[in-house]
């Protein structure tokens, strides 16, 4: 698969090159990688081990990486066509019925709640374990972490690009060092490194690939920064580099986990701490506890901003109740931020009580596969509906690849939604169906009333702009 630049403009379409502050490629890569590499990544990596033989997890991760490349092609083309934070609304609205587009978008947004909740739970559990506190204390950590995230968001605090770069690269480097050290200190050879289905079925491998896709998920969220980049091609180049980095780091950490951790450690809520401990003793445990906490910085910063601003924009557009567009004195949409905090807290506490984080992983994996299938569909549909639209990044072979992507990602979404810990489990599917049904009932039942009320309000407001004086009769020389 390849992509070609055709008709690529020499500069950004809207002159972002001249901005006083613009994001460079380094920050695009760190944002894309940082959003994907949440704390949940460690648990998903440990969970993936259960589906394949020995130390061969890098194979499904590699296959998932190839599929992520396919998704990269779709998002690269769509982002090039609509280089804006509102891109998902624009390309979906132009590819399908707006009600279907909104239903899918709202359902997809639940991924952000899940990832924030999961990270709060994982960081809370990791800190409680590192400090030797009883498990229930993790609940206090969760409340504290999410409270801090909500408060800093309400105050308009945003992690600067440089800090985000540093945080992401430190997390990746530390994870690599711990993974390599753990492998080096274990003197046994790798088990079945090239035979993932040894004693397993092909179905297990497919499930492993579905879970592997989740390891790359959210790399595409960086497209919401399209208006801030110095050059438009930084977005698709950055995403490509990010996929490469994710493949290397995730493969290494997963193989290290499968090689040195016991089954009991793999299914715990903090396998990365045990890996750190296996690599460097107590120092490694504390290093990984610190790294886990730092991953939350990216998740909370990116997740809260992306979701709350999307809800604000949709409310301002008239597709959500106007109360969701209320701003505080720091111009922060405080209702979506609070709602996101409360929802994430509830989900995180439910996970802490039930210990069902692998269900979150399955739901996240299925929703990501679903949105990749939707991106494939939009790419295909827009090739037909808007063939002459400028495409600075054009996916070569898109008609075929989009059909392949649509089929494969739809299949993976179904597989991921009915399997937890390599066992048949319909709970993720039930959660997704419930979220989809809620979104659909809002779009079909409530939205028409919201839009009518908004139209009536606007119609009742007097027009302020003075009417233009009528044009005079043409002069004699006309």
């Amino acid at each position, binding site marked *: 698969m390849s992509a070609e630049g055709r008709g690529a403009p020499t500069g*950004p*379409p*809207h*002159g*972002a090159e*001249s*901005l*006083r*502050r613009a994001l460079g490629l380094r920050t695009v890569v760190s944002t894309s990688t940082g959003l994907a590499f949440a704390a949940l990544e460690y648990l998903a990596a440990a969970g993936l081990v259960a589906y394949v033989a020995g130390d061969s997890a890098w194979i499904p991760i590699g296959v998932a990486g190839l599929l992520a490349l396919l998704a990269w092609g779709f998002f690269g083309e769509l982002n090039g066509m*609509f280089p*804006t*934070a*509102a891109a998902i*609304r*624009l390309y979906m609205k132009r590819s399908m019925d707006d009600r279907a587009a909104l239903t899918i978008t709202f359902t997809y947004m639940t991924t952000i709640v899940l990832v924030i909740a999961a990270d709060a739970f994982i960081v809370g559990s990791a800190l409680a374990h590192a400090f030797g506190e009883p498990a229930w204390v993790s609940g206090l950590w969760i409340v504290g972490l999410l409270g801090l995230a909500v408060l800093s968001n309400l105050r*308009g605090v*945003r992690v600067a690009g440089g800090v985000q770069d540093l945080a992401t690269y430190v997390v990746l480097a530390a994870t690599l060092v711990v993974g390599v050290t753990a492998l080096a200190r274990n003197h046994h050879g790798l088990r079945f490194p090239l035979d993932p289905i040894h004693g397993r079925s092909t179905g297990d491998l497919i499930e492993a690939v579905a879970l592997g896709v989740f390891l790359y998920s959210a790399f595409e969220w960086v497209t*919401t*920064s399209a*208006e*801030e980049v110095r050059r438009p091609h930084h977005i698709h180049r950055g995403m490509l580099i990010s996929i490469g980095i994710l493949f290397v780091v995730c493969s290494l950490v997963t193989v290290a986990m499968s090689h040195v951790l016991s089954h009991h450690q793999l299914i715990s809520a903090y396998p990365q701490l045990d890996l750190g401990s296996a690599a460097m003793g107590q120092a490694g445990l504390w290093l990984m506890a610190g790294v886990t906490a730092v991953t939350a910085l990216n998740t909370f910063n990116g997740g809260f*901003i992306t979701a709350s*601003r999307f809800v*604000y*924009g*949709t409310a*301002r*557009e*008239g597709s959500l109740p*106007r*109360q969701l*567009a*209320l*701003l505080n*004195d*720091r*111009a922060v949409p405080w209702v979506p931020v609070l709602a996101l905090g409360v929802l994430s807290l509830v989900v995180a506490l439910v996970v802490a009580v039930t210990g069902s984080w692998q269900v979150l992983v399955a739901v996240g994996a299925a929703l990501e596969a679903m949105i990749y299938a939707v991106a494939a569909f939009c790419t295909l549909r827009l090739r037909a509906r808007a063939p002459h639209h400028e495409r600075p990044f054009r996916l070569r072979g898109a008609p075929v690849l989009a059909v392949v992507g649509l089929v494969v990602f739809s299949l993976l979404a179904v597989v991921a939604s009915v399997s937890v810990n390599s066992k048949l489990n319909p709970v993720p599917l039930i959660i997704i169906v419930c979220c989809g049904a809620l979104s659909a009932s809002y779009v079909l039942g409530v939205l028409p009333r919201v839009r009518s009320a908004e139209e009536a309000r606007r119609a009742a407001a007097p*027009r*302020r*702009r003075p009417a233009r004086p009528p044009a005079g009769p043409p002069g004699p020389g006309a």
Partner: protein
Amino acid sequence: MASVEELAEAYAEWRRRSNDNARLRKMVRGWDRVIHFTTTDTGAGFTMEVRDQVLSELAVGHVGQPDVIVTGSSEDFCDMFWGDLNPSEKYMSGEITLAGAQQDVMRIDAISMVAFLDQPQ
């Protein structure tokens, strides 16, 4: 198409409302920015600056290095400055495009909303 005079008149109203609005001045505290407007239909450029919580007069042409670039039709800008148009709607439909940091884009939308008491009660 709106003329330069029409745009200047509309902006003057926007500026007056914004600078007279105590809440809005609070919202732009510490937010000193240069904003360039470019009209797609007339090809004109304008510059506004926010400094020390006050919106400057509209300068014709692009002056200084911008923090945000807003591109749209002269009619849309005119309607937006008069408070008759919700810029978010045009932005979400792709008719107004922006370049700049998301938080800066939010502030501009906040100005257009709060200046005309469009804030939901």
